[in-house]
């Protein structure tokens, strides 16, 4: 009978083993590597061009990001306005990004427009002219954005956090200052572009319902460019964290204080990384995490708190981030350290292990759902010279990690004396 329905949880089925489609790989006529992942139901594609041209390669702050933005501000055959109008006319979405290690562009489009997209991509990537008027107005705009962003405690805190972790002299760490916006010139951009946006430095990642003619078009637009030999660069720039671990930055008239606590750590290439990922989830990686439950759901100090673990080419970092009411700042910090100590000393109970295991297994299903997610997941291991075995190891670790291993990881990687603590607020 309906009315006698027992409102208890229905049977819980283990989340099926994740199946990850392997990317196919081939090379263009000139040797440029291409990876393709066929997926999805709609006639759409995601096309990404990746270059090792991130901040790590820049000789001046803002050089890498400005070069990337300026790619679409005018080319040999198109003005900036014509380029943008043409992309819009074909319903193409263009994302440009320059991160710490890699930079490039991603285009999302209806598969039938593939040839136009290739033509525009070549203009953007290999024929930019870096016109001075566009550069000047971009830098004025970027300075405006910068001024607005530096008003926000969360941005100030994050900028200072990176500086403390990676040092004032390393591209991972240094902060941008107002005068930096005056230093970038068209010739600096052209030099940076010549050096790093080159076919030998490029990888192409394609996913979606891939058009039959894709390889032909890739070869005719990108396969004829000559490849030069890549010279090994001797990196002399070492990462060196600041000595002072606790920094408070005074910012007047704020109602909330931003807190960032964390440190440099291992990256994806390290065998402990999957385990650390799980530890991070338990601490602050999902809505049911300890920090979220304690500091938001139990105490109401904040709208949100989370812990993230990020891999970079030369290192990794972990950070706990939150914005809390001014009066809760000290109490929140105390609770964060308390939660870390608990993980170092008290085994996680089986019930909680079951929740985090299954949540993370579900998360892995979401990471490989659909053509866009697949491409992003592929890229995030490819960047480290890894392949899907990383995901299989993570999946296995999620199923098998035991509470003692969590304690060991917490002791090894969350030594409280080594954590940086950055706060920004008016007290």
């Amino acid at each position, binding site marked *: 009978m309906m009315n006698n329905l027992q409102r208890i949880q229905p049977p819980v089925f283990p989340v099926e083993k994740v199946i990850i489609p392997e990317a196919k790989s081939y090379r263009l006529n000139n040797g440029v590597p291409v990876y393709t992942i066929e997926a999805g139901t709609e006639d759409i594609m995601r096309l990404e061009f990746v270059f090792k041209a991130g901040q790590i390669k820049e000789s001046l702050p803002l050089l890498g990001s400005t070069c990337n933005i300026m790619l679409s501000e005018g080319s040999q055959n198109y003005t900036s306005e014509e380029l943008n109008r043409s992309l819009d006319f074909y319903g193409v979405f263009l994302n440009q990004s320059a991160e710490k290690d890699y930079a490039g562009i991603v285009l999302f489009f209806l598969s039938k427009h593939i040839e136009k997209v290739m033509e525009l991509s070549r203009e953007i990537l290999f024929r930019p002219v870096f016109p001075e008027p566009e550069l000047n107005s971009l830098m004025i705009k970027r300075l405006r954005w910068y001024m607005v962003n530096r008003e926000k405690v969360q941005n100030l805190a994050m900028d200072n956090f990176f500086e403390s972790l990676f040092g004032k002299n390393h591209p991972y760490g240094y902060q941008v200052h107002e005068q930096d916006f005056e230093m970038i010139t068209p010739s600096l951009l052209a030099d940076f572009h010549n050096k790093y946006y080159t076919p030998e430095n490029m990888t192409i990642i394609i996913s979606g319902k891939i058009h039959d003619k894709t390889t032909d078009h890739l070869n005719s637009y990108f396969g004829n460019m000559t490849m030069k030999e890549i010279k090994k660069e001797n990196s002399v720039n070492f990462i060196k964290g600041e000595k002072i671990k606790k920094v408070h930055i005074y910012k007047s008239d704020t109602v909330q204080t931003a807190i960032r606590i964390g440190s440099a750590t291992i990256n994806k290439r390290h065998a402990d990384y999957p385990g650390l990922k799980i530890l991070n989830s338990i601490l602050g990686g999902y809505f049911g995490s300890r920090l979220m439950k304690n500091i938001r759901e139990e105490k109401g100090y*904040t709208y949100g708190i989370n812990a993230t673990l990020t891999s970079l080419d030369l290192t990794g970092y972990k950070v706990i981030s939150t914005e809390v009411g001014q009066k809760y700042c000290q109490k929140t910090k105390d609770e964060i350290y308390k939660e870390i100590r608990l993980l170092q000393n008290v085994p996680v109970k089986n019930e909680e292990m079951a929740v985090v295991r299954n949540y993370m297994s579900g998360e892995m299903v979401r990471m490989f759902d659909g053509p866009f997610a697949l491409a992003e997941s592929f890229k995030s291991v490819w960047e480290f010279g890894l392949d899907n075995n990383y995901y299989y190891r993570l999946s296995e670790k999620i199923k098998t990690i035991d509470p003692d291993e969590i304690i060991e990881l917490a002791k090894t990687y969350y030594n409280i004396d080594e954590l940086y603590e950055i706060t920004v607020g008016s007290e």
Partner: protein
Amino acid sequence: MINYKRFSLDNGLRVLVHEDKSTPLIAMNLLYDVGSRDEDPTMTGQAHLFEHLMFGGSVNIPDFDTPLQLVGGENNAFTSNDITNYYLTVPSENIETGFWLESDRMLELDFSQKNLDTQKSVVTEEFNQRYLNQPYGDAILKLRPLAYKVHPYRWPTIGMDMAHIKNTSLEQIKKFFFSHYAPNNAILALTGNIEYELAYKLAQKWFGPIEKRTVQSRNLPAEPEQNEARIMTIESDVPSTALYKVWHIGARNSNDFYTLDLITDLLAGGESGRLYTKLVREKKLFSEINAYLTADIDPGLIIVNGKLMKGVDIHYANDSVNEVINSLLNKNGIEDEMEKVKNKFESSTVFSNTSILNKAANLSFFELLGNAGLINNEVDAYRKVSYSIVTDAIRKYFIPSNCSTINYISTRKEK
């Protein structure tokens, strides 16, 4: 083309199902036909506060999130002026847990004073984070009561005054629940790796036994026509001066909706939009500028906002915005631009509908508007807009007496 089936339970719950076997997941979207427009003006922010309480446990389930995480699921919710929308995704084999959870909190919440007190504090911090601790964060709080004098859209979803949140009692919360949360006031959509038959069976099993409730009827005061320009000046220590302009438009279901959507795309759809091209790129008056519709169910707003470059006079910036809008009345080159925004709309609709969550949310929302089939007709409706319809709409809506403006002046001295 998004195929879907629909059915209703005896208690009035409407259900939509769309099968997409290409994903191992199912998305479940439960829309309640209640938003901040349904609040008492002396007790604003309740609908949104209530959304927070919906995660604090229900009559048979002490904690909503944990059992869902235990089956690999993930969830969230949002509240708008019009609706409160709850959604989750879960690996398909565990969809029944989603039904169990959502039906239990429709059945009855665990009304606890402790949970209410905590969530009042969380919402206050959310208010601080979003509106007070950001430069320009309060502009939208000031803009609403400038544009609306009578209609409940005059207050923001989070509430017009945090004292309203502070003063909310457990009794009021209970009353709010039973007068708005009901099967006959909700729409459920399931998309992804689910068959219609299973959706039907599970909906009957878990939602079927919940009784129909008496839903508080909606009788909102209509906003009278605005007949003079409204201008407000705010001075604040922000990095640069900003301009906010809004014009009243018709309801979401009115014929003009897609016309106005197209107009905002002509103005600000990407970097080739007219406002960006003329005022950012050419005249360098703004560092950024945007235009969009609020997309509210009752008559909403067109919003144009931008941040000025240093030294630009706000009145000149304002006149220049009006000039760009009026330039759309000149036929030169407009056909190409219209074709461009139509193509872009089509492509963004295709992209949006690759996500099962978006499909579930859209199906529920369009069903609320009266026709879930709109999910397949939007591109057509947008494509049908002709140039003469555009010019008529510009002449009708973009008139000074229909406009409210905030001049958000930076008082900062620059070096």
